[in-house]
């Protein structure tokens, strides 16, 4: 599985994503390298990690290397319910890798829509997520789910204990219907809600089929509203030609405090980890601007590095010169070759291990 090769370089992918986002009217947003640590303390429920690299600036203020981009973008938003902001970014974030037990620098590109998030805005975010995946590889798939639907079921069942919520979300995230069934029984969850959760834990396959099989399990008006939102989104994406690229799959739901509605997760065939992640996060947006909604996603580039085809040669031409060569003549020759589109490396002798297509001498 690890032999999958992505044809584009990292720069090529970033350039393609930039073009997609700017063609959709998203403005580039470059943020400061550091963020005030107090922002993360005040909003720790919305952070994807509890680990943050913190340091003092010369004035004694606590600063942090950003573990997350969205918070920094949302805190300064000028969006209102009547006037939206559409921004894209390319940033580095610093997150703790629990397996490696060390911090990792993660290169990510993403976008945020802030303001009035109606059906068109939600569809545009999903469409741009699909187009982002297509820019990386033609073998991609977008998982779509809905955190509001899950949170609603748990709320109606009176499951307010954080620990139990987390156990149920963990079962959904791992498609673990057997332990989920034991858990819903132990919690005395009403049968219709337990049946829906168990179905969602096993969700997959085409979005259309899954939605059709899910319908008989929808028994409350609130769940119906969220179900219809999912139906409308999937139908629109199918109408736009993406029916084979979307799956209704609730293993993508996580971070109940953060996401409030639709959740996306994008995969490339042959790459083990998701390369795209995002969704609707109205609760965080409303903390900073009354009445607005928000949706966005990030594309993670780190994993792609391991799947890029290495160049066959380090240079097209190795141009060797002698002690007696005229320096100007050496570089004129190199420039003439470069003008023809050849890569040229100039050396007095052949460097150890250098792979070159051909050798020229001056």
């Amino acid at each position: 599985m690890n032999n999958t090769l992505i044809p584009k370089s990292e720069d090529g992918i970033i350039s393609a994503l930039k073009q997609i986002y700017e063609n959709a009217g998203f403005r580039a947003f470059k943020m400061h390298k550091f963020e005030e640590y107090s922002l993360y303390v005040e909003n720790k429920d919305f952070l994807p990690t509890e680990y943050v690299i913190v340091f003092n600036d010369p004035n004694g203020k606590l600063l942090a290397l950003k573990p997350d981009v969205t918070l920094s973008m949302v805190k300064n938003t000028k969006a209102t319910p009547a006037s939206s902001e559409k921004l894209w970014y390319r940033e580095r974030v610093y997150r703790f890798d629990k397996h490696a037990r060390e911090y990792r620098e993660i290169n990510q590109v993403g976008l945020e829509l802030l303001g009035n998030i109606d059906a068109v805005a939600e569809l545009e975010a999903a469409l741009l997520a699909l187009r982002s995946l297509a820019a990386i590889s033609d073998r991609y798939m977008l998982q779509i789910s809905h955190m509001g639907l899950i949170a609603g079921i748990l709320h109606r069942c009176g499951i307010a204990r954080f620990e139990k919520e987390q156990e149920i979300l963990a079962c959904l995230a791992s498609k673990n219907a057997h332990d989920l069934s034991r858990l819903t029984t132990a919690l005395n969850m009403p049968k219709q809600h337990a049946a829906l959760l168990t179905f969602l834990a096993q969700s997959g396959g085409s979005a259309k089929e899954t939605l059709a099989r899910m319908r008989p399990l929808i028994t409350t008006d609130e769940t119906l509203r969220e179900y219809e939102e999912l139906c409308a989104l999937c139908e629109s994406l199918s109408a736009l030609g993406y029916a084979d690229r979307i799956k209704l799959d609730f293993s993508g739901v996580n971070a109940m405090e953060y996401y409030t509605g639709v959740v996306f997760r994008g995969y490339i065939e042959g790459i083990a980890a998701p390369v795209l992640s995002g969704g609707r996060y109205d609760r965080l947006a409303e903390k900073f601007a009354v009445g607005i909604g928000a949706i966005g996603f990030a594309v993670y580039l780190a994993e792609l590095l391991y799947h890029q085809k290495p160049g066959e040669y380090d240079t097209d031409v190795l141009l060797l010169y002698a002690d007696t060569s005229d320096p100007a003549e050496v570089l004129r020759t190199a420039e003439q070759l470069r003008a023809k589109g050849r890569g040229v490396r100039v050396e007095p002798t052949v460097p150890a291990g250098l792979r070159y297509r051909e050798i020229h001498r001056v």
Partner: protein
Amino acid sequence: MLNIALPKGRLGMQVYQLLDEIGYGCAEITDEGSRKLIFENPHNDVRYFLVKPSDVAIYVEKGAADIGVVGKDILLENAPDVYELLDLGFGSCRMCVAAMTGYREDTARPLRVATKFTNITRTHYTKKNRDVEIIKLYGSIELAPIVGMSDVIVDLVETGATLRENGLQVVEEIVSISARLIANKSSFLFKEGQINRITAELQKGRSV
């Protein structure tokens, strides 16, 4: 091609027999004299890796294997980001707290716990708000309370015979353990039909 990671030993072979019956055979794997770690049958479009039981989840999480079979103890201890598709019901045992027969806990001081499973132990005692000193061991866990190094142990108990022989007894059961079928999240999306078929067949085999 479907890549399957199986744990070396009895459990791995038990699962292989079921996979063989549903069309994923690879006869070479049953050769007990073989020292090979990888077995391939292009005819059945399948490749097996035989790996250390505790490594199966890593192979699947990292995508080297599409599916695998692993004990629930490993999943609880290492929390790999994988799908847990089926409780196979094999290899049943219990994760338990055990102590010397007649042991009485002194709740006025931290509890010393010897174990291989430090994360399961920490989670268990954090839920109870009990202060513990965890002593990480790699084998012969039962020895720790006998020589007074720990008050209790947290370990897998199958029949309880090893505990009894060493004068220990179970004082608390933490969780039931059995073998689970796991899948890589990306592989599942792109090989869903094949993986669902295997899951369904293994489920049938399980209930036989």
